[in-house]
């Protein structure tokens, strides 16, 4: 096509036929995005089958007007809708057809108006619209189309470009709206499907035939980083999810709104769409028989499809496992402070046991954490010299294989965790982590709880004291001054990275200042100041 003032019915049909082929290329990838608790079978496949049904009908449309093609697409989609996202997609086409009613062809602004109508109708079909799904994507795409058409250009291709651009951003943003997506580190599958359809249509409009043929749709990466927690997700495997139940009722004087209200009491993820002669139902229920008996008096049932969601979920987990590095080793770390917990989880720790100096966890606490992870092999990072022995006890209480990497400080624990290799076996990992932990120097600054004399130093109660790798080496009134004194004992010229974790009792501004001073004195160092939030220790510093 290329430049176009308006789109005819034939263009509409061809562009979505191209979009269907485009979607087909990534249907399997979209299936892989699926995430509990909205198990919808295979979203990509379902949307593809819905589109196929839609296009079959469109090719049978008697007239060539945009209006009648859109209506045929809508009808085909309703009859062929599969799964949650397929049903919502059918509502999008229904809205689009309403928006294009009576139109022989349409311009950019008319397309934008029809997309807005599509968004409205899609929301209406659901009893409980959830944001961060295909709904958000159609809404944001439609409003971008509208803004573009009224402020920039009425050109149909450029409106479609704006629509696709907004859809892409919207998809990338879905994990920040829907926590389950964030947890799984994926974007919404239905949203990705819709984006792919719109993108395929745009390629057609721009005449990019080669691209349609040779390239594959790109899967949008989540704009929110994935915190890998695969083992916990697998742990949720036991919960029963029931049956994903789909069917069409044909009859007379059907009332979709009333039926939706009735069905809401009988299941979850209820979608009821259609008109007074045909209604499509999608519902998650523990008892599909109950639903069937309830609707059978209303008319005849067609396209009945009941799928066991537990099986779907298992398939999904299997797929997830393939997508992530195969981690059969879990890491349990003992950490105090929110900031430090974030550091450990962001680097791949599977479970955190709260504890540290003066809050030593019991063997039972550690055992519980070990039991809570699915992996049969567990590495424990005690991160404190008083916890190493406790950690060593865990092996005698569990059938799992336990390795303790005896990190005695937080910096040692971080260094060990960073050395974890997704490819390596337990033995190699233990060796690598032990080696890595020994390569860092740890500095800890805290306040004395009583007056004493130690290591040749007179210490008064509440004075700041500084430890270097566990040895008391400095004392003073101010924590930052003591930290500088300890740092002076380390050969910083041969160091590369200094990380300063400041504790709950330390003002962030003071910590930043410490960082600035070190940077000035040693410009070759990479200095990072991180809020650790740990109790008791004003500063924990690692020198690598």
């Amino acid at each position: 096509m290329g430049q176009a003032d308006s789109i005819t019915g034939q263009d509409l049909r061809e562009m979505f036929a191209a979009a269907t082929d485009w979607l087909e290329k990534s249907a399997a990838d979209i299936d892989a995005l699926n995430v509990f608790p909205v198990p919808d079978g295979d979203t990509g496949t379902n949307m593809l089958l819905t589109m196929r049904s839609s296009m079959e009908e469109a090719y049978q449309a008697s007239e060539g007007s945009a209006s009648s093609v859109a209506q045929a697409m809508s009808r085909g989609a309703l009859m062929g809708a599969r799964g949650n996202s397929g049903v919502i997609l059918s509502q999008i086409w229904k809205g689009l057809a309403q928006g294009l009613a009576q139109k022989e062809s349409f311009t950019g602004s008319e397309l934008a108006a029809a997309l807005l109508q599509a968004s409205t109708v899609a929301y209406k079909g659901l009893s409980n619209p959830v944001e961060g799904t295909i709904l958000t994507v159609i809404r944001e795409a439609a409003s971008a189309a509208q803004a573009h058409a009224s402020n920039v250009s009425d050109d149909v291709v450029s409106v479609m470009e704006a629509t696709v651009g907004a859809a892409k951003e919207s998809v990338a943003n879905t994990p920040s709206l829907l926590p389950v997506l964030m947890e799984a580190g994926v974007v919404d599958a239905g949203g990705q499907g819709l984006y792919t359809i719109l993108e395929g249509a745009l390629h057609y409009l721009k005449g990019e035939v080669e691209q349609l043929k040779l390239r594959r749709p790109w899967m949008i990466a989540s704009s929110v980083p994935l915190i890998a927690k695969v083992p916990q997700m697998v742990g949720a495997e036991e919960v029963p999810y029931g049956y994903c139940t789909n069917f069409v009722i044909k009859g007379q004087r059907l009332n979709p709104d009333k039926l939706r209200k009735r069905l809401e009491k009988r299941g979850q993820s209820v979608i009821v769409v259609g008109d007074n002669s045909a209604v499509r139902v999608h519902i998650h229920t523990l008892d599909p028989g109950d639903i069937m008996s309830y609707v059978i008096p209303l008319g005849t049932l067609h396209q009945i499809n009941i799928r066991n969601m537990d099986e779907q979920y298992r398939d999904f987990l299997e797929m997830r496992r393939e997508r992530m590095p195969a981690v059969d080793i879990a890491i349990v770390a003992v950490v105090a402070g929110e900031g430090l917990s974030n550091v450990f989880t962001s680097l791949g720790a599977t479970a955190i046991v709260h504890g540290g100096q003066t809050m030593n966890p019991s063997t039972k606490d550690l055992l519980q954490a070990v039991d809570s992870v699915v992996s049969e092999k567990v590495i424990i990072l005690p991160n404190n010299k008083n916890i190493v022995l406790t950690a060593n006890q865990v092996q005698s209480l569990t059938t799992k294989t336990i390795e303790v990497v005896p990190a005695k400080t937080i910096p040692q624990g971080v260094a060990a965790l960073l050395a974890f290799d997704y490819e390596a076996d337990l033995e190699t990992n233990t060796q690598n982590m032990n080696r890595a932990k020994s390569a860092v120097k740890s500095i800890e600054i805290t306040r004395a709880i009583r007056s004493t004399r130690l290591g040749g130093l007179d210490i008064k109660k509440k004075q700041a004291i500084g430890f270097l790798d566990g040895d008391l080496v400095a004392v003073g009134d101010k924590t930052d001054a003591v930290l500088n004194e300890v740092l002076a004992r380390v050969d910083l010229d041969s160091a590369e990275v200094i990380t300063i974790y400041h504790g709950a009792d330390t003002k962030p501004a003071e910590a930043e200042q410490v960082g600035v001073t070190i940077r000035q004195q040693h410009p070759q160092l990479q200095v990072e100041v991180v809020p650790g939030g740990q109790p008791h220790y004003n500063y924990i510093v690692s020198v690598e």
Partner: protein
Amino acid sequence: MAVKIVTDSLGDIPSEVAGELGITVIPINVLFGTESYRDGVDLTTDQFYHKLMHSKTFPTTIVPPLDMFVDIYNKLAEETDEIAVITNSHKLSAAYEAALQAKELMKRKCRVEVVDSLWAVMAQGLIVIAAAKAADAGASLDEVVALAHFNIPRVDVRMVLDTLEYLKRGGRIGKAQAFLGSVLKVSPVLGLRDGEVFPFARERSRAKAIDYLYNFAASFSHIDEMAVEHATTPDEADELTERLSSKFPKERIYRSKVSPVIGAHVGPRVLGVAVLGDK
């Protein structure tokens, strides 16, 4: 008639090496919006990465039209009756697919074998170079293809990145997703496994990450070929090559630049080592 070797530009084979060994390189370019960009022709490398860092739109990869593959096959078929095409991983681009399809469309009678290297960058490049050397020495098409398959599991590559941001933006992050979200600043070391991006290590500093590259290359017990490549940091590449010369003759270490397509996904300060050999 010697077997002709064809590959794509994701293999990062330096043009003088390609010329010397008679390797035909099919260009895979990037497109910024509507502007196509060819490395060193339309923009300098620095201009390209400046654009990458500051442009809102992410560049897209353009596999050349089928016609170009067909034309190249037809043209080579005037000189030979056996062509080996070794492409980058089918999981990274559509080149393999296009190379296969083009085979059906060529007019001249000529045997064409297409091999999916399952690699990119100089890991792919070294497989192709080894194939070209064999072809030069008189190997038949079957022998060249067998050698390529033999070498696919013998090659490996590691690359140090400054950030995972570009991989994420480009949607090709693969299993390196596990490295996202680190609270601490880390230098990720990535490679490819089964044709996909794979996370190997995280180092706290770039210097340590470069040590990792050295140790990776040094861990091979036998080395057939080696390559060091970079995008915008020639000095680091020089230094690393110098260090590696204790393991492998410096004059035999190929020096190359990461193609813009890969560069767009890994970011400007990428530095990598590829080795063909035995571990």
